[in-house]
């Protein structure tokens, strides 16, 4: 372990890795600051460019983008009341009122420090938790893994959209799509429709760029169809020097809020599918409940900004805990990062610690470094990022479309990948419009090959007999949890409207 760790230090502290971490954090921050763009989109667009990099460089770069994106989303939320990502919606509640009061620079500083605080805390927790959990997970066999995957997909489908059935349909679609290509056992073509390009399966990047990036551009295009693209954005930053300072006394007062919110972010982040938005809302509510001046929340309370941003950023490294422990992504960004691992021939999960410990420690050290770089980039580039958000959609959206084409071409299988990406943009647009969870869809797609392999192995091991499950108590626990979540969420939605009304009425009157 010591050898692997010292080797990892030597690998990370090179000019190339540090430069790419800087670049990743800066690009992530920039993209996060742009309204409507999010870090998952940025990762999808940048993934093809990392194919020729060494695994450690590529993963450190993409993790930098992920971290930078989470922190940068506060900039537009604070300055123009438009969150860069859904998880920063809560930041607008107090961030924008602070801007209106002429405290924009102070709000940005609080947002940045809370982001870095949450990020570092969560990275430490990831480092401490991932390996012990992986050691436990290494004992799980295909039966247990199948049960865990069934539970994870069910749970993510339940919490990631308004309709449980639509979430599950999206998950099954992702899992089904992943079965295209050569069959893992016989090596014979399956669902390839005669296209030799599909023998290796549908390229992840064509799916990810199409459903995430290009479809989002198309949604934004139709959203602004009444001529909203060319409108200039205005900030109300007064540039008042006195209000821009953040004294230590004030910062110390925010520390308990940041600590509590980081804890919320970590817990929510570890559970697959819950996401940073829920973490921000929960921590904001908690901070307001514990505050001596709850009435100030929503009027420009610094605690509100700190709570939201600390939780948002704490959830980012925490989402990697299940990835390192059992190879299970719980969010869009982590699904794409898992795709990056696979692209470099690495299988995330418990065996990664055994097979490539130096790389895992290298990633951990790179993550800590990225947290510090985040602080530096945020402080130095604060005014620059504040100007970037003024760039009009007429400039941003066409450039993203161009990057989508290039990305799908490079790692999606040439022009075939580009056309495939256009098909998935079409599909993704309607999924977004009709609320079919594309998080579940993409997680299902990434997990597809692993799900099929473990399901096949489980069926062979148990000989297809349900009674054999009695030898696998862990699998039974997860299957019961999956059944309970199916029963709970589906019965809530299939309930007779009259009964539902009566139940809600009773709950309101009690």
């Amino acid at each position: 372990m010591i050898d692997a760790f010292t080797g990892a230090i030597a690998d990370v502290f090179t000019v190339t890795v540090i430069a790419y971490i800087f670049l990743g954090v800066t690009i992530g921050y920039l993209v996060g600051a742009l309204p409507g763009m999010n870090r998952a989109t940025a990762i999808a667009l940048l993934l093809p460019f990392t194919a020729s990099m060494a695994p450690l460089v590529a993963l450190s770069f993409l993790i930098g983008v992920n971290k930078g994106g989470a922190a940068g989303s506060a900039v537009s939320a604070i300055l123009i009341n438009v969150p860069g990502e859904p998880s920063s919606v809560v930041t607008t509640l107090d961030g924008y009122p602070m801007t209106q009061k002429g405290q924009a620079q102070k709000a940005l500083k609080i947002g940045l420090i809370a982001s870095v605080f949450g990020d570092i805390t969560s990275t430490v927790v990831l480092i401490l938790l991932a390996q012990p959990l992986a050691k436990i997970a290494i004992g799980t066999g295909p039966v247990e893994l199948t049960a865990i995957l069934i539970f994870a997909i069910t749970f993510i489908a339940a919490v990631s959209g308004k309709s449980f059935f639509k979430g599950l349909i999206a998950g099954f679609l992702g899992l089904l799509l992943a079965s295209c290509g050569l069959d893992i056992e016989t090596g014979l073509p399956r669902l390839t429709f005669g296209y030799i390009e599909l023998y290796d399966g549908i390229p992840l990047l064509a799916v990810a760029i199409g459903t995430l990036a290009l479809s989002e551009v198309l949604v934004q295009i139709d959203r602004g169809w009444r001529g909203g693209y060319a409108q200039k954005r205005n900030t109300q930053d007064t540039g008042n020097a006195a209000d821009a300072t953040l004294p230590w006394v004030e910062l110390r007062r925010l520390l308990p809020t940041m600590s509590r919110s980081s804890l919320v972010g970590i817990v929510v982040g570890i559970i697959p599918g819950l996401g940073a938005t829920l973490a921000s809302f929960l921590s904001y509510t908690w901070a307001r409940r514990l505050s001596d001046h709850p009435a100030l929340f929503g009027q420009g309370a610094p605690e509100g900004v700190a709570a939201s941003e600390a939780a948002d950023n704490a959830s980012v490294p925490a989402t990697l805990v299940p990835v390192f422990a059992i190879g299970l992504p719980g969010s869009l960004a982590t699904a794409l990062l898992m795709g990056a691992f696979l692209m470099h021939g690495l299988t995330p999960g418990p065996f990664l610690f055994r097979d490539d410990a130096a790389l895992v420690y290298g990633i951990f050290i790179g993550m800590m470094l990225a947290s510090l770089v985040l602080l530096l980039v945020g402080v130095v580039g604060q005014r620059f990022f504040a100007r970037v958000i003024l760039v009009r959609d007429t400039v941003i959206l066409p450039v993203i479309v161009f990057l989508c084409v290039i990305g799908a071409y490079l790692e999606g299988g040439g022009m075939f990948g580009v056309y495939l990406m256009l098909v998935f943009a079409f599909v993704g647009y309607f999924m977004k419009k009709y609320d079919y969870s594309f998080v579940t869809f993409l997680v299902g797609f990434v997990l597809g090959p692993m799900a099929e392999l473990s399901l096949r192995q489980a069926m062979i091991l148990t000989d297809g007999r349900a009674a054999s499950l009695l030898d696998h108590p862990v699998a039974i626990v997860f299957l019961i949890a999956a059944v309970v979540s199916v029963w709970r969420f589906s019965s809530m939605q299939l309930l007779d409207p009259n009964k539902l009304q009566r139940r809600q009425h009773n709950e309101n009157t009690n």
Partner: protein
Amino acid sequence: MRKADLIGGIGFVIFALLMILRIIPGETESGTTYGLSPYFYPTVMSAGILICGIGLVWQNWRQPRPHNNGDQAVNEAGHEIEIDTDMETNPEAAPLTASQLMMFLIAMAVIVTSVWLIQRFGIVVFAPVLIAALMIFLGERDWRVILPTMLLPVGIVYLIVTHVLQSPLP
């Protein structure tokens, strides 16, 4: 959304049935297998879509239908109950309006045409055209903005891909 979900649910039921009965058997080559046949996994996933599609249809079929006045609905027993009908009565709240669909289709047409032109004539020539066409489509008329935007990203990406990554471009 209720009507859209109902149609979507029926669509997914038909899709799953097509997959199970026609597409999976027709597009999967069978061979000697030790464990499970290649049909097994996609069929299980399609069955999942089928069950959830039925669930979605059932869920929306049982939902109260809105009256014309928007804030009242009638259930199966004929009793009036209040529901949130924003999606049904307010076109702005609907998931997809006709004008939005039109914008989407035009944008898709511009992108697909540009991609086809890129494939035929190369990215260096037609990527700037793609960017410029989309900018004009979105309402940008300032050539001082259009010119650098159409040339700079293409130039930078071209240099990175061909010289740093050493990958060919169309």
